[in-house]
């Protein structure tokens, strides 16, 4: 039972990381109608810059801030230089251009930082574990990730439903020309939204830094999971991203944790290990296919 709760927490934490990635991507999708395959690159930029600054200054907080700035600024630069020219174009042109960006950013990190993974440690005040329940010890850092992710979710909700900027963004999503006619600088608005999205990706990246390997190409491993999340949740819906991320996080973690032993109850052990492991790898894709067959537009379809 304790093990099950711990695995639930693990799933929750993975889900939260995925949410940070998905929120940015789904915003850009939903509001700007842009497919950004290079979203994972900003995750990577966040991790690389965060790791470098943390090691250099010895301060994790400075590292996080540098990571956010780097991911946000690079994001806005990419929007202005590349994506702005592609809003009126076919989705597929955006796919091709952002696919090119992945190549560029991956090789660029290898040129700047070298080919080996980078070191990033967590701050002393987040090290160690605490006993949540008798027998259930859990790393503080992972709890912190959960807390940060939830705060971001709340903040986004507040931004979109309670502030003027949020209203403009939503209005811009449903009718771009109208909001332009009302005197809102739609270009700037889009740049900001895109920057916000990449900043969130950078946040996810820098928070993943102390737990995962910081290496070139790390963005693509999580990118596909992120796409799975937003498709399950419904493209363009932040609420959908929350639900989708938690579902994917839980299914993936619980699948890995319990499927092999489940199979061992009725299959020979070596066969069960291999079938269970394969099925666990597939579990989120099976989840996605099932959701889409049941609800072809995701769980929370947006209107446009």
């Amino acid at each position, binding site marked *: 039972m*304790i*093990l099950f709760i*711990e*695995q639930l927490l*693990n*799933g929750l*934490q*993975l889900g939260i990381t995925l949410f940070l990635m998905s929120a940015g991507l789904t915003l850009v999708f939903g509001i700007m109608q842009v497919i950004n395959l290079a979203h994972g690159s900003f995750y990577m930029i966040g991790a690389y810059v965060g790791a470098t600054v943390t090691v250099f200054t010895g301060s994790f907080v400075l590292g996080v801030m540098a990571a956010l700035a780097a991911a946000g600024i690079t994001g806005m630069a990419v929007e202005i230089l590349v994506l702005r020219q592609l809003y009126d174009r076919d989705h597929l042109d955006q796919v091709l251009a952002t696919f090119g960006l992945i190549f560029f950013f*991956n*090789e660029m990190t*290898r040129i700047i930082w*070298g*080919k*080996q*993974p*980078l*070191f990033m*440690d*967590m701050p002393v005040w987040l*090290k*160690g*574990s605490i006993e949540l329940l008798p027998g259930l*010890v859990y*790393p503080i*850092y*992972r709890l912190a990730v959960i807390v940060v992710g939830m705060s971001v979710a709340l903040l986004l909700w507040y931004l979109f439903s309670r502030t003027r900027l949020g209203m403009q963004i939503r209005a811009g999503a449903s009718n771009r020309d109208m909001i332009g006619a009302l005197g809102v600088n739609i270009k700037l608005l889009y740049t900001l939204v895109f920057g916000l999205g990449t900043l969130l990706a950078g946040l996810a990246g820098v928070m*993943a830094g*102390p*737990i*995962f*390997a*910081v*290496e*070139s*190409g*790390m963005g693509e*491993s*999580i990118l596909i999971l992120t796409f799975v999340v937003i498709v399950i949740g419904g493209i363009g819906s932040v609420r959908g991203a929350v639900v989708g991320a938690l579902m994917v996080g839980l299914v993936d*973690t*619980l699948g*890995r*944790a319990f499927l*092999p032993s489940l199979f061992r109850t009725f299959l020979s052990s*070596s066969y069960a*290990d*291999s079938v269970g*492991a*394969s099925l*666990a*790898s597939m579990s989120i894709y099976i989840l996605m296919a099932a959701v889409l067959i049941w609800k072809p537009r995701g769980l929370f379809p947006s209107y446009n």
Partner: protein
Amino acid sequence: MKRLMTILIATVFVFSLQSAAAEPVKIGMITTLSTKAAYLGEDIRDGFQLAVDQEGGKLGGVEVELMVEDDGRKPEKAKQIAERYMKKDGVKIMTGIVFSNVAIAVVPKVVRDGVVYLSANAGPSMLAGKGCNENYFSVSYQNDNIDEVVGQFVNDSEHQSVYLIAPNYPAGKDHLAGFKRYFKKEISAEVYTKLGQSDYAAEIAAIRAAKPDAVFFFLPGGMGVSFIKQYAQAGLSEEIPLYGPAFSFDERLLKAVGPVALGVKNGSQWTHDLDNEANKQFVAAYEEKYGRTPTLYASQGYDTARLIGSALKAVSGKVDDLDAFKKALKDANFDSVRGSFSFGANQHPIQDLYIREVIKTDDGQYTNRTIKKVFENHVDAYASECKM
């Protein structure tokens, strides 16, 4: 006067003959220089290049031309490069492939076409056993060796039960099999994870619940970095010690893992502190040239180059006589940085295997220290299956 002229003409003739014969021997290196595993190929290349540079562009006194190309870790691409090397450039000697699956795709084909392939890293069982070939040499190891040594070491230790973890693909299963070949006590569990996975929270929670005496893992590259970090963060590294093959503990990965790897014991065929002349010279030269401690991959690249050099010297650069060249290779008449080195019947190394420990040096770097020689002149498990 006449005689002088004759000598002069003869000398010119001989020289012109020599310069015709001095066409450099081409060596084709197919390796991984992009993707997450890029640094492995970089080290193999740099180690190899060092040997060439030390002789001023020659190996064994014979001028060589080293061609290097990135396979992007894709078997199909590697095959394409191999084909170009053979057909366009007339390359007769190839090396460099990092990954076993790439090697399995490329090697059987090129050795059939008369190329001598020397592996500077991958040593899949298939090429050591039934699929062995007289044109194929492994200078590095047979994959399982590095796990067998850990298996033996843990078997001799006080640990009674071990938890095994590896990615769900054939190499993962092979490596665990290598460990189990010499570890005869209790296997607490055998877990296979998703290839390329980065979050191991679920697996680590399961390890905590299973309470084994030790954990043996094969998770190469970034997977291992993530796993070791998360394992330590969960507070398990003090309770249940980790063991693994050298792949997760080379000096460049250790930089990324940091202090949490301290004290972990791992198996290898080489360490930079091995006490022999060739090795001391290599480590010093490598550090001076590239500004970093050599990894085992670099040592394998270097050894491969030096082995080629010894054979080129023996046949005076005449690679056309393939049989003589192969025989010279098989003699392994060179000073390996590993100390004792010879080829077994299947042309895989017979060598010593060590257990090392991760330590921190005085200037704050993380590296390995040899603590025990576990196997002496170890022969791989597949040699008997090879009919050559």
